[in-house]
């Protein structure tokens, strides 16, 4: 039985509950007192401030990890696998002589929700994938460890240099909830339009500079009997990777932040939205999407693309690892930056590059210091390079891959990333309001791309859906200013 005293206004005061429910007359008093918060009880109250066990701090152990104290890691095992984390855990084990319990899963949310509710979460979590935990709620309810100590600790490669100074600034920005840095996005995903260098060169096609060039090129491609585009219709948010970023590039980041912040009329008053959505409407009307794409999974659409049935696909840099089994040897995977529109606020070559793979350390875990230390190990050059080799993806550790020989897709991603410099686009909308972007807007985008929905209706309905979320007080809201 959970213990529920009527403390303050948190928790179900047993007395209150009985009084109210008796007043409503729904449940009799005896059963009520018997059942008061069985499922919801246990852990969670903020009064229980346990001091996490800590060891002595030193130059090589700046966080003060307690030797021999067990560590538990929960790692999302998706497109990137989980071997990279196991490698870091092995280092932790040998350094601190502690056992590390590792779980690799695709079901982070369903598996860990009850453990948070029960007050015994693991020490470090890679909270990624479709079924991830809601970090906004967790942060809201004080379940996430503030990672400031990690940022201020000396780095593994050079103890005189703080961890904070070795990672990309946008990672520092994205990991914030309010003023607290409590999420470390370990990887860097480069979003964009992916294509085969070999196919483009053999046909003498140039990667288009602007939206209108794209439409022209699509016409030529279609004449060759190849579909210009394909996409993962089963998961329409794949289309949003590019669509959102394209709006931000043309309309500028300030106008996009208004969208992220759910401001009234943020979609309807932004001309870039109209331009980009009409561009997609045109592509759909001219049948520039591979037929049947609306029913394909991400894997199926990527397979069509590696087979050369379609030239372009909106995707993120994990595609190289994920599509490896079907990619021909000489495919020459490459990614291109965003296209120019009219009156752009951001220069040519702007790119959507986002910190990804969110790692969190639960504050109520048994060994949060150990959790942070594992992240510090992963942020060393050695492990950042290991990650790049194993899963063909960049990390937030700056210049970690200098002088390494990279795979084609990763090399292309690195070079567009370098060219973009500081002209980076980042979108929080999907991170913060997945029910809005994936379900509601995903449905609209699917209809837009099959030609069943007009651009003007897409904009109108999207604005309505965004307004509805803005009014819904059961959804935690977030604001960004940079």
């Amino acid at each position, binding site marked *: 039985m*959970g213990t529920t005293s009527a403390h303050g*206004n*948190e*928790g*179900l005061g047993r007395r*209150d*509950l009985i009084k*109210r*429910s008796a007043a*409503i007359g*729904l*449940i009799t008093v005896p*059963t*009520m007192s018997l*059942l008061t*918060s*069985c*499922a*919801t*009880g*246990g*852990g*969670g*109250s903020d009064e229980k401030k346990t001091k996490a066990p800590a060891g002595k701090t030193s130059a090589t152990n700046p966080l003060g990890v307690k030797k021999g104290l067990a560590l538990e890691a929960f790692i999302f095992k998706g497109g990137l696998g989980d071997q990279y984390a196991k490698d870091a855990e092995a280092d932790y084990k040998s350094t601190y002589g502690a056992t590390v319990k590792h779980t690799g899963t695709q079901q982070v*949310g369903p598996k860990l*929700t009850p453990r*948070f*509710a*029960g*007050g015994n979460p693991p020490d470090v979590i890679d909270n990624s994938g479709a*079924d991830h*935990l*809601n970090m906004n*709620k*967790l942060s809201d*309810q004080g*379940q996430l460890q503030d990672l400031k100590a990690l940022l201020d600790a000396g780095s593994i490669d050079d103890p005189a240099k703080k961890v904070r100074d070795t990672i990309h600034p946008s990672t520092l920005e994205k990991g914030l909830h309010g003023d607290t840095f409590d999420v470390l996005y370990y990887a860097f995903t480069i979003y964009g339009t992916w294509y085969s260098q070999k196919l483009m060169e053999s046909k003498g096609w140039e990667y288009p500079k602007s939206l209108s060039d794209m439409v022209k090129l699509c016409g030529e491609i279609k004449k060759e009997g190849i579909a210009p585009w394909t996409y993962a*219709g*089963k998961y*329409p948010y794949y289309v949003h990777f590019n669509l959102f970023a394209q709006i931000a590039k043309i309309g500028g980041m300030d106008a996009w932040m208004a969208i992220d912040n759910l401001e009234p009329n943020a979609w309807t008053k932004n001309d870039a939205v109209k331009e980009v959505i009409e561009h997609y409407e045109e592509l759909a009307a001219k049948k520039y999407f591979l*037929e*049947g*794409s*609306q*029913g*394909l999974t991400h894997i*199926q659409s990527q397979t*069509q693309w590696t087979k050369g049935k379609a030239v372009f696909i909106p995707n993120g840099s994990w595609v190289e690892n994920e599509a490896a089994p079907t990619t021909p040897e000489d495919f020459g995977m490459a990614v291109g930056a965003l296209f120019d529109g009219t009156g752009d606020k951001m220069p040519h070559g702007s790119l959507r590059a986002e910190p990804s793979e969110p790692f969190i350390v639960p504050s109520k875990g048994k060994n949060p210091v150990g959790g942070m230390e594992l992240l510090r190990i992963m942020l060393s050059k050695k492990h950042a390079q290991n990650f790049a080799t194993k899963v063909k993806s960049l990390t937030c550790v700056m210049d970690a891959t200098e002088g390494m020989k990279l795979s084609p897709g990763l090399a292309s991603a690195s070079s567009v990333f370098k060219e973009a410099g500081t002209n980076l686009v980042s979108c929080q909308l999907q991170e913060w309001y*997945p*029910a809005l972007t*994936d*379900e509601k807007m*995903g*449905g*609209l985008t*699917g*209809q837009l791309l*099959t030609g*069943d929905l007009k651009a003007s209706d897409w904009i109108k309905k999207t604005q309505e859906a965004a307004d509805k979320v803005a009014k819904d007080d*059961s959804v935690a809201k977030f604001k960004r200013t940079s």
Partner: protein
Amino acid sequence: MQHGKYRFVAGFLALPLIVYAIFVISPFVQAFQISMTDWSGLVGTAEFVGLDNFRRLWESDEFWNALRHNIYMLALIPVITLGMGLFFAFMLNVGGRRKKNEVVTGVAGSKFYKFVFFFPQVISITIIAVIWFNIYNPDPHDGMLNSFLGTVGLDSLQNAWLGEKSIALWCISAVMVWSNVGFYVVLFSAAMASIPREIYEAALLDGAGRFDTFFKITVPLLWDTVQTGWVYMGIIALDAFALVQIMSVNMGGPDGATDVMPLRLFQTAFRDSQFGYASAMGIAMLIVTMAFAVLTMRFARRERIEF
């Protein structure tokens, strides 16, 4: 020996009943309690919000949309599944031609058919969903259905199936029918086996054809079994979670065209972390399912025929 019989029985049943009460009945009752809180499911504290979740549910277009799809399925799927089950069972048991010294037989090869019909029941629903998802793959070469249509020259019928808003729900419903028919064939076959042969013989002597024997003898005598099957199939149609979650485009899409109540509940709990609201949905589902079962039992009642 009569003395103390009940105490004796209760003594044996006490332990399982206590286990059942703790692990089945108490979560049921707690769902009612949780549905009146704003519990997120992530931490052990929650605020009491009264009937607020139910008010939200009443005003939620998404939930009504999901309920409507469940009702469509409830109206169609049991009728089709049971109808086909009855028909096949009849053909396998009594629909055959007359042979010597056997008055009532099934069609040729009925043993083999029985085995094949039951096959989908043996495979887990998840695997069925994945298999059919791939059959519906819209690609004209990789998708079994589309490539078949292409081979026989029916290219005009090729479709994006699950990606097509107007037919996606029926594609999923078809799979539900396909995977359940076999069970009813076996169930009705067993029930038919208990119908005395003399009744069929008498009917045949009076010159009844297959049609008459089916509607005037088989169906009335099987009515109890049909009724049970109906409730069971109705509950399956009100669920449909596994098929929709695995097969549908964008979780209940395109654009909400295949959304069902349990999927809504799942998304609310695990994606939006609103367990209180999700519990309220669970209770709404309970009410709908109970209402359906009670109404079926009430209106499908007929005279029992003793034989």
